[in-house]
């Protein structure tokens, strides 16, 4: 079963002469275990597509399915619930809650998703941080962490609730190439070892190198959808 699917999903902004078709009748299926990149020039509609899939936004026309469930008719509460349960987000600017420590940020994701891991929320959060190499920095506030470290916390936060899909919009754009590579390799590892499904958007060739499927977007439409046999860096 597809984890999520867009069917002729459109997202229009404005109207009349200012109408922008940020997503224009997109058809797209993401399967379990993919490591896929949306690529395209700035303004092509990558973020728009990710927002539709991630239930952060709703299509003006067409349908979005998540875990086989059509979402068009869901109310805000149900959408929020489904999003919390099924989808983890990694953001370009990390978006950690500044007043919470690393481990509290990760706990927050667990609490909001309603997950009740064996051994408790604190232990699961600590383990998730240890898995991204931050086992020693549990109690640092975001301001006390480097960008790369913050993004690792964000990875732990997205993954701790074991979502069906992790969406990452330009996750390396605010990182230097060394931290970016580190974070990417981490995600690739999680994908290969645990089967976590990732969907990115990026301009970054480094990300595309590691992708197994690259979807090219232009003017809100899919221009090309290619599968890459080799699995990038080993």
């Amino acid at each position, binding site marked *: 079963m597809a984890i999520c699917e867009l069917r002729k999903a459109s997202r229009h902004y404005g109207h009349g002469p200012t109408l922008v078709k940020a997503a224009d009748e997109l058809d797209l299926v993401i399967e379990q275990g993919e490591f896929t990149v949306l690529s395209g020039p700035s303004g092509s509609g990558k973020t728009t597509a990710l927002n539709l899939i991630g*239930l*952060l936004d709703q299509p003006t026309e067409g349908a979005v399915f998540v875990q086989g469930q059509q979402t068009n008719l869901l109310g805000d509460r149900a959408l929020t619930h489904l999003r919390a349960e099924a989808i983890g987000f990694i953001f*370009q600017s990390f*978006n950690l*809650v500044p007043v919470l420590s690393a481990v509290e940020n990760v706990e927050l*994701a667990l609490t*909001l998703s309603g997950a009740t891991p064996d051994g408790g929320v604190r232990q699961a959060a600590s383990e998730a941080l240890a898995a991204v190499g931050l086992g020693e920095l549990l109690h640092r506030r975001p301001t006390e962490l480097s960008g790369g470290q913050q993004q690792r916390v964000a990875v732990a936060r997205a993954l701790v609730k074991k979502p069906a899909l992790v969406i990452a919009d330009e996750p390396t754009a605010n990182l230097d190439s060394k931290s970016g590579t580190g974070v990417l390799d981490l995600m690739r590892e999680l994908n290969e070892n645990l089967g976590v499904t990732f969907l990115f958007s990026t301009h970054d060739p480094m990300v595309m190198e590691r992708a197994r499927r690259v979807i090219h977007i232009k003017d809100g439409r899919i221009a090309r959808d290619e599968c890459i046999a080799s699995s990038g860096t080993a």
Partner: protein
Amino acid sequence: MVIFRIATRNLFRQARRNALSMVSIVMGVFVIIAGHGFQNGLNENMIRAQIDSASGHVMTVPEGYPTTGFRQPIADAYPLTDASRAWLDANTAAWTPRILAAPRAIAGRDAMKVRLYGVGERDEAVFPRDNWSVEGELPGEGEVLVGSSPARLLGVQPGDLLTLEVRTVDGALNAMRYPVSGILTTGNPMIDNVSVFATLSSVDTLVAADGRVTHVATRIGDRRDAEAFGAELAAAVPSTQARTWEDEVGPMLEAQQVRETMFDIMGLALLLMAATGIANTVLMAAYERTREIGTLRSMGLQRGGVLAMFALEGLWMGVVGGLVGVGLGGGLTYHYSVNGIDLLAMMAGKAEAMDNVPIAATLYLQFSPTTMAVAFAVGVFVAMGASIYPALAASRIAPAEAVRAS
């Protein structure tokens, strides 16, 4: 709960801005507490002064006695029968007969109208003299004790002579000359400004009262029983009516009520200012944290959660501001409820206008935990109410704001 934790910590992100927004809450709560403490203290002060220096708990006055103006009850003086005396002994905690007259006091070429009190031997049991300060001696038979203002205006000292010219009970004119035994200062302008004291029998002779009196002042166990007791008292002393301390001081307290209302209005106005300040602050916080709210929403926080988070932030400001206001207001009223404020010094030079206002020299503010609790609750309620609108605005921020570039 995690929302609670975030809201509480968020309070410190803009600590200075939030502290400024709380200032009006502090002031509003403070004004309400201090205002009530002052007004209730003043009311109690007037009641005490009235009871302790003018009327006791209940006094009998001649029937048809005027309730306002400068009172000249001499013509209606009434006899105190043995039956009345026995009843008073049996039914009061203390009682004292008095003759009040309004003579002209003359010393040399100066003269002024004064209030002459002829007081019984046990007068002090009804009218305590704790705050009496006498320069010289209390008056013996045929002597007078002169209030500080008349003494100054007439230029008399202990040992000088003072002439009192008065109409007798029968309406004849009489005048007698008395040695001044002492000068009296109490801090109560009603006494200090116009009074002259003498023994009951001295005044009886001056006004030819022949055993009759104009007032009988009483003290009873509980001042709240004054009205019921007054009815019995009037029946027990023929040709009199009873006036309770409430009758005397009631109209004045009602006039004071206006001031208490003013304090409340001031306090509420300050709290209203606080409301706009807090609404503004919380709204600013909501917009500053748009991306953060989007992130929380993307992670699964419901709209209600966002609303609660920001309303809690407002609530916290109310709680903190309210506590500080309660601390300041409570501290002030407590301090002055124990130590008192020296009204004498404050009224210096203005006391002439207060001949008919009973005031004791020391004002004790009322320390009231009830008022403090109410003021605190109002402060918290206002702050919380003020943050509802911005919290609603925050809750409508879309989850997609999480990815919008800032």
